[in-house]
């Protein structure tokens, strides 16, 4: 909406002032993320811009924090832990979540509201409360698995964290997949059944390709939830399950090294990739459903 030619002086002032205000809010939103990126190339161990950096002296910049991230054992181990835990948790929440979302989108589901409330609850309950509850309960489960089933302590630790993260990811899968299923044309599955396909074939050949964009974006949400999660892993996990966010959290509390900023920059890169993927998926999904990409 542009300024009409007959606008009064006051209207003009307000028009531009409003845009300046909006620009300032956008700056507020984006600056913290942008500030981190150049600082991660700092040659000094400071959390702020050095005079060399401000004068664009190449000596003020270096990749040493990145080098530290890729060579330091602590960081590498936590990165690996994150890469183990997040994908497995995602697979669990996506497979169970998709099935349940399909079930929920049927026309006659008893207690639909109640079931939905339970499945969404991990997203609503504050993380600290989920973490507290899981802390108590999972230590009992862990003792049982170690003592009675004789499993390795380390393995039990991973199982606990993965289960906890899988639960936290489920609401996201449920929400995105149910949203995709709303626009799903039921006559397609009936047509498939009519032509002799059994329900499993129908699911994989007809329904799945159509809802895939929703499933993938739900999976991305679940992945990022686990990849970014620190409270629950802090309470449920032990030191050998230390994930990347956990390592960052300890680093921030004790203020050890600006390597955190290098990690932060890498994570910003990952989130940009995720954002692009999601946008492409959204467009594809809308194209499949015959809507024009908006």
């Amino acid at each position, binding site marked *: *909406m542009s300024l009409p030619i007959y606008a009064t002086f006051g209207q003009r002032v*307000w028009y531009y002032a409003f*845009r300046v*205000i*909006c620009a300032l*809010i*956008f700056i*507020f*939103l*984006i600056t*913290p*993320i942008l500030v981190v990126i150049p600082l991660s190339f700092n040659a000094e161990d*400071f*959390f*702020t*811009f050095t005079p060399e950096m401000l004068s664009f002296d190449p000596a003020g910049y270096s990749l040493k924090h990145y080098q530290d991230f890729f060579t330091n054992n602590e960081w590498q181990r936590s990165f690996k832990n994150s890469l183990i835990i997040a994908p497995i948790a995602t697979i669990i929440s996506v497979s*169970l979540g998709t*099935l*349940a979302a399909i*079930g929920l989108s*049927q026309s*006659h*589901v*008893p207690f639909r509201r109640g*079931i939905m*409330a*339970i*499945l*969404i609850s*991990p997203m*609503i*309950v*504050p*993380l*600290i*409360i*989920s*973490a*507290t*509850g*899981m*802390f*108590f*309960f*999972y230590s009992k489960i862990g003792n049982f698995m170690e003592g009675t089933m004789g499993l390795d302590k380390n393995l039990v630790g991973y199982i606990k964290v993965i289960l906890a993260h899988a*639960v936290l990811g*489920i609401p*996201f899968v449920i929400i995105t997949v149910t949203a995709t299923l709303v626009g799903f044309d039921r006559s397609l599955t009936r047509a498939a059944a009519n032509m002799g396909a059994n329900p499993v074939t129908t699911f994989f050949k007809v329904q799945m390709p159509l809802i895939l964009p929703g499933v993938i974006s739900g999976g991305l949400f679940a992945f990022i939830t686990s*990849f*970014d999660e620190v409270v629950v892993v802090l*309470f449920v996990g032990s030191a050998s399950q230390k994930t990347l966010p956990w390592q960052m959290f300890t680093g*921030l509390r004790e203020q050890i090294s600006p390597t955190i900023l290098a990690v*932060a920059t890498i*994570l*910003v890169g990952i*989130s*940009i990739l995720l*954002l692009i993927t*999601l946008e492409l998926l959204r467009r594809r999904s809308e194209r499949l459903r015959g809507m024009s990409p*908006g």
Partner: protein
Amino acid sequence: MTKTATNEPVLAADGTPLKRSLARALRVQKMRALALIAPLLIFVMISFIIPIGDMLFRSVENKIVENTLPYTVDELSRWDGTGTELPPEPVYRDMYFDLFLAAELKRHTRLGSRLNYEASGMSSLFRQAGRKLDDPGKDAVKLLKSIDPVWGERDTYYTLFNAAAGDAVNQDLLAAQQSRIRWLADETPTGEMAFAPSQNVSDLLPLAARVYTSSAVITGMIENKDVAKSKPMESLYLALLQDVTRPGFQDDLAAYDGPQKDALTALANAGLSAPNYSAIFADIDENWADIETWRVIQTHSGEFTNGYFLNAIDMQKTPDGPAVQPENKRVLIQLFIRTLIMSLTIMGSCILLGYPIAWILSNVPTRQANMLMILVLLPFWTSLLVRTSAWKVMLQQQGVINDVLVWVGLVADDARLVMINNQFGTIVAMTHILLPFMILPMYSVMQTINPSYLRAAKSLGATNWTAFWRVYFPQSIPGIGAGSILVFILSIGYYITPEIVGGTKGVFISNRIAYHISSSLNWGLAAALGTILLAVVLGLYWCYDKIVGIDNVKLG
């Protein structure tokens, strides 16, 4: 009158009544839907709902006192704690034997820490007692040996208490001691042991048989050692003294016909007196002779307690009912209020900052809106810790904002602003982190507002402000409501950001919960605080569901 459909049921193709056939089809459909949902529902139930329920239960559960000191609690329940008299001797006696067993398994400190939440000093009182309970036992065994040397040999006790082949076994006693030790040691006594308490002797020497059995369960079933060759707990000697001096022992002994009759007779005729337990305790620490100590134990001996909830709202449980905590311990209500006020402030600043953004997003051409949307979605998708660390970098005294202000000359170098480790830091960082959650619902509502309403208002003579306030704003309220509840729910339970940028003044109730879980280990209080927070959040969630509906939650 011809036959009509009213008395003949309509039939399906296979001959069953149509009604039944349809009902069956519907039932199959329902079952299929439930079967698809069931795996996930069970998974969420087990790994999420039950843990939450477990936490709720923990906020009232208080088995530790009763399980650690079962006989004392039983004896203590007959004592009037509101009077001025100290508990009678049997209470001290049971306390001695209960505490001795707990100390043997190193569990008395756990009880001490539990009671220390209620009255400071209890922890050290129990720890100290655990160290010094052995001494009276050593004195007692010397006394026994001086009467008959057989009382110094381990085998004497084993043959006395063990049921020989053909003798009746006191199964109740064995089971009771096993379950007691299972709880105390956090370990099921599973080993095989070559001991079973004899029914005869446990009638004659009830206390000593109990002590010997529990001692045998520990050595035989937990440490897997030979009971006959192991030294029993020192409390056994006191228990034996207690039993041989009990009224009626002489008569029972006359009727007794079993091992060690001579040695027992020697003890019975030696003119011994029962141990003075209250003196033993008073010797260890004078606080055991203080009525307050016993009042605390009695007050908190119930299996369930509302004590944690009372503590959570700055009150305490006393023998005379709930009372307000002393002034210097009242912090939690203040923290709840602070959490609420800060969450409201964050919600308010999110509304103020989010509204213009949502408005501009929904009023510029789609292409521009998509570009601007990236600026909102990028922070939304960026890791929470990245954003928190960014704010730490920005707000520090040697941080980016202060540097810029100093460089511009607005602030002197030696008077840098303190913007972190206080409420300001928490509010700024959390407003930034939660702003997308406000903008997205507002945007989705504003998109649906028809711009011709505004034009109509203006063409009818409304000023810009009136048109906005009377026409546009009321239509955008659902978006504000949805966004506000979402932001409020999220912020009230935040932990990470306040922990890092909040210092001591800018922390929330969740930080207190985490403190009680990992540092002070007062898990009951943590659970009670969590329960209260959960109730608040669920209440808000219910409102959200009524206003927006869970099904309408949209992501991205």
